């Protein structure tokens, strides 16, 4: 409750500061809940990973769970951090969002979670997010925020034998 109040109050204070003409100060380095970095910023961008889930014949498959995970390796062990997940829609489309700098170990886990429904039961698959395919769709602010990038990756699932 206290945290929620603080966030609300902080947003009000930020808005009032903007009204006083400190809008440019606020936007040059985003005044988020915790204020801007002291001496250094963190470059970051929004990534949208999207595509279509299909069966082997190219027919869209609805209801397939797609999960974006960041995988870290340390001392030969792998750790996965879930970022976003969504089910494919009636046209087989999925769209996942991540705010981060690109990470070469990002993966999309594709899983059939509804059994025989929606075209049968499919084997799971894993896609490596290919950041080389990232296309910028919105510019950043010329400072720490680098903009929005989209990566399109379709997937064809094999049916379970």
């Amino acid at each position, binding site marked *: 409750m206290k*945290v929620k109040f*603080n966030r609300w*109050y*902080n947003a009000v*204070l*930020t808005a*009032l*500061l903007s009204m*006083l*003409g*400190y809008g440019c*100060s606020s936007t*040059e*380095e985003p*005044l988020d*809940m*915790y*204020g*801007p*970095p*002291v*001496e*250094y*910023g*963190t*470059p970051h961008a929004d990534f949208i990973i999207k595509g279509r889930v299909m069966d082997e014949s190219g027919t869209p498959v609805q209801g397939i769970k797609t999960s974006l995970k*960041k995988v*870290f*390796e*340390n001392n030969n062990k792998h750790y996965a*951090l879930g970022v976003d997940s969504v089910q494919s829609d009636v046209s087989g489309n999925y769209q996942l969002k991540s705010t*981060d*700098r690109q990470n070469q170990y990002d993966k999309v886990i594709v899983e059939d979670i509804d059994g025989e429904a929606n075209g049968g039961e499919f084997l799971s698959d894993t896609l490596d997010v290919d950041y080389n395919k990232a296309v910028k769709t919105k510019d950043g602010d*010329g*400072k*720490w925020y*680098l903009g929005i990038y989209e990566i399109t990756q379709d997937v064809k699932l094999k049916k379970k034998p």
Partner: protein
Amino acid sequence: MKPTPLTLRKKLALELWRQKENILREEHPLKQLFWECTLRCDLRCRHCGSDCKMQPESNDMPKEDFLRVLDSIAAKTDPHKVFVIVSGGEPLMRRDIEECGRAIYEKGFPWGMVTNALHLTPQRWQGLLQAGIHTMAISLDGLAEDHNWMRGNGQSFQMVSQAIDMLVATEGFVFDIVTCVNRRNYPKLDDIKEFLISKGVKRWRLFTVFPVGRAAFDPDMRLTNEEFRGVFDYIKKVREEGRIRADYGCEGFLGNYEGEVRSRLFSCQAGVTVGSVMADGSIAACASIRADYNQGNIYEDDFMEVWENRYHPYRNREWMKKDECSQCKYFRYCRGNGMHLRDGDGKLLFCHLHRLQET
């Protein structure tokens, strides 16, 4: 511009900012973590606040020891939201710095580095990029003659210039150039600015020397009152030009210059959002704060335990309201200036506002 009395608009803004800062102090989220990865340094700069040597008495901290600190942090907070700043000494003196960076990155922490660039060869730059480096701050204190004088090395300017070319050519990489303004380079700030703009640099941070380290005894380092005030007028002018983004460093409450020479109003973030792990394992805040204010040691304490439960002198600064601060009506906005400007007895070493008021 007169530093005081504050205009009504400025006063209102500072009151609002103060409320925001109160929330921040209450929540004290760790946002930036300095790691003093070595005390070794390949330069002997005139102004340096630390006491680094080519061959220090102590060895560098093994990277595994620092990584354990990161594990402690990751257990309590999202590592993506804590930025690790590798500093020194000179970080590139460590042969394994790329390995350290990669390990930090793989634990999910963004990281950057403060460097003098003397050993930033194209090969090492590629290694750092592969290790996931996010940002870099490079020191440049003048054009060739002045910079090399300040740094005490005839090759230093050339290496910085080469490093800037490499960084500018790396698409999307964000970095800034940090300049220590002193009596010698003060009249030539425009030359430095034009040099940086011609190179494609977008961010330039200027700071003035504070009286610790070697600078405390060097008259060439200390600006006159007029020059000191002139630095802020200069930054204000450069910001208005809009050709390069200039900022004054994070220290010092500046009266009516607040909001004009920095992209934020003043508050010292040490111990509020900024922590550090020093070369000997001490748990502190910004790297230039005296050891008297250390809060623990990673070889004896859990970092996050310390972060959550100590740091009282940093988060409640009422104790600073003494001596010249005791009657100061601007204390409510300044809160005693930067933590690094307090000596071992808690006395204030330097008041930016008083200095500005003296001209």
